[in-house]
């Protein structure tokens, strides 16, 4: 057995003397992963997990598989209800946090209860931007209830029904695939001229437009959203979060909750992880807000480690992939045009695939791959190792 270093011993001592109370707001994949990691690291602590949803944790990524009947509904759940009590986690479903008092270290919940914390994690995720509220034929694909509702719409449609997709991002891709699966003619309306206009160069965006049109999807660019009769509307116009209760507590919020590389916020003993976290990315050298599964799960784990006093830098080149009617699309790392100072393209429409590279001060920081899967690992490694954009462009 290796000898314990001094800081290990201090950490162990702290763990044994005090019973810590960890409070996690948000029971999605980031918050639940944090709770699981906290329990592994600290078997005697109190852990409270406050969740807006009434269900145990499930995978949002599995919802399209469930809608297509690839898996039964019960397979979307990642944990059983009993898991929370087995782990001695005080699971509070159906409750929201509404007020934070960082001075006296307590959180007020929507049921009126006040809970004190020693360390607090905010992992509340995002809610879909709502369009056309209270319209029954409008669908969002964020929650299990949304998936159930979409299936109801599909099962009760008439023969001339059309699928209308609003938005040009990953959720819009899911709706296009779902309507195609059910052989429903599809029209896509986007506000800009192509998908992911904050990331993609025109040539790359037009590649996707051409692909959709080839697949028989009607595409309306620079379009306003309006509901037409006899349609099922799938909305994928991004997510937003309610930060008002956190801002009034003095938490620094920008696009997301601002955190350093240890996922610590500007308020002592308050941490953040997942879709709401705008963290300092040590690889690219500035703050990023990333909403994908890989990021959420790893941040949940790293936040838990830091909450227990095991100082851990969050360092990850995260990626997200989708398949849009046969077109493979992969986003890796930092893919915002506004935060890069150089963009290069490899491949072409004629070649059947394009890679768009993002550079910052000569360093490769991100990439979008269309039908060029074989570049994925190489680019991930180059970004992780802080290599130059030249190095990739020359391969």
């Amino acid at each position, binding site marked *: 057995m290796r000898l314990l270093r001094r800081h290990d011993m201090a950490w162990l001592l702290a763990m044994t003397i005090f019973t810590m109370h960890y409070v996690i707001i948000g029971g999605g994949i980031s918050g639940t992963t944090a709770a699981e990691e906290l329990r592994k690291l600290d078997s005697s602590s109190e852990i409270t997990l406050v969740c807006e949803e009434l269900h145990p944790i499930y995978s949002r990524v599995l919802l399209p598989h469930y809608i297509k009947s*690839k898996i039964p509904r019960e397979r979307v759940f990642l944990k059983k209800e009993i898991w929370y009590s087995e782990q001695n986690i005080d699971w509070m479903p159906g409750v929201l946090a509404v007020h934070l008092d960082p001075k006296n270290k307590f959180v007020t919940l929507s049921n009126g209860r006040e809970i004190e914390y020693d360390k607090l994690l905010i992992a509340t995720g995002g809610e879909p931007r709502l369009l056309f509220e209270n319209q029954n034929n409008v669908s969002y694909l964020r929650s299990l209830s949304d998936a159930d509702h979409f299936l109801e719409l599909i099962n009760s449609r008439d023969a001339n029904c059309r699928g209308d997709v609003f938005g040009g991002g990953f959720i819009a891709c899911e709706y296009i695939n779902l309507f195609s699966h059910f052989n429903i003619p599809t029209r896509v309306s986007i506000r800009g001229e192509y998908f992911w206009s904050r990331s993609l160069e025109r040539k790359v965006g037009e590649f996707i437009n051409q692909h959709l049109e080839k697949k028989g999807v009607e595409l309306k660019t620079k379009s306003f959203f309006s509901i037409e009769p006899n349609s099922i509307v799938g909305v994928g116009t991004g997510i937003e979060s309610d930060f008002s209760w956190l801002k009034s507590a003095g938490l620094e919020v920008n696009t997301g909750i601002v955190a350093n590389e240890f996922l610590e916020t500007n308020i002592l003993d308050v941490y953040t992880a997942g879709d709401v976290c705008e963290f300092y990315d040590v690889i690219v050298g500035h703050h990023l807000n990333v909403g*994908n*599964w890989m990021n959420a799960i*790893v941040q949940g784990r790293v936040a838990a480690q830091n909450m227990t006093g095991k100082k851990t830098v969050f360092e990850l080149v995260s990626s997200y992939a989708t398949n849009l009617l046969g077109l493979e699309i992969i986003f890796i790392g930092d893919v915002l045009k506004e935060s890069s100072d150089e963009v290069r393209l490899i491949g072409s429409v004629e070649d059947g695939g394009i890679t768009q590279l993002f550079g910052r001060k000569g360093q490769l920081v991100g990439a979008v791959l269309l039908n060029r*899967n074989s570049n*994925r690992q190489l680019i991930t490694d180059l970004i992780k190792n802080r290599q130059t954009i030249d190095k990739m462009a020359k391969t």
Partner: protein
Amino acid sequence: MKLRIKVDPDLCIGAASCVTISPETFQLNDENKAVVFDHSQEPNGRTYERWIEVNDDEKENILLAAQSCPTLAIFIFDEEGKQLFPEI
């Protein structure tokens, strides 16, 4: 001990969280699906299913990789054929 590791390519969406956690066991192929490696090697070629010899730490890490999969596309079995993950 030996584990049987199996990826269902129909469920896999190439999220790559398994590759992040256990790159010696999982890598993506050109179809953007996870394939199973044996300690960074591919004896007998590329495959979605493989028996591999592991120690306790490796087993724990492979289970962690399987748990991180957003589509539960990774199945782990022990030598007796018992499914260790996803729990039934």
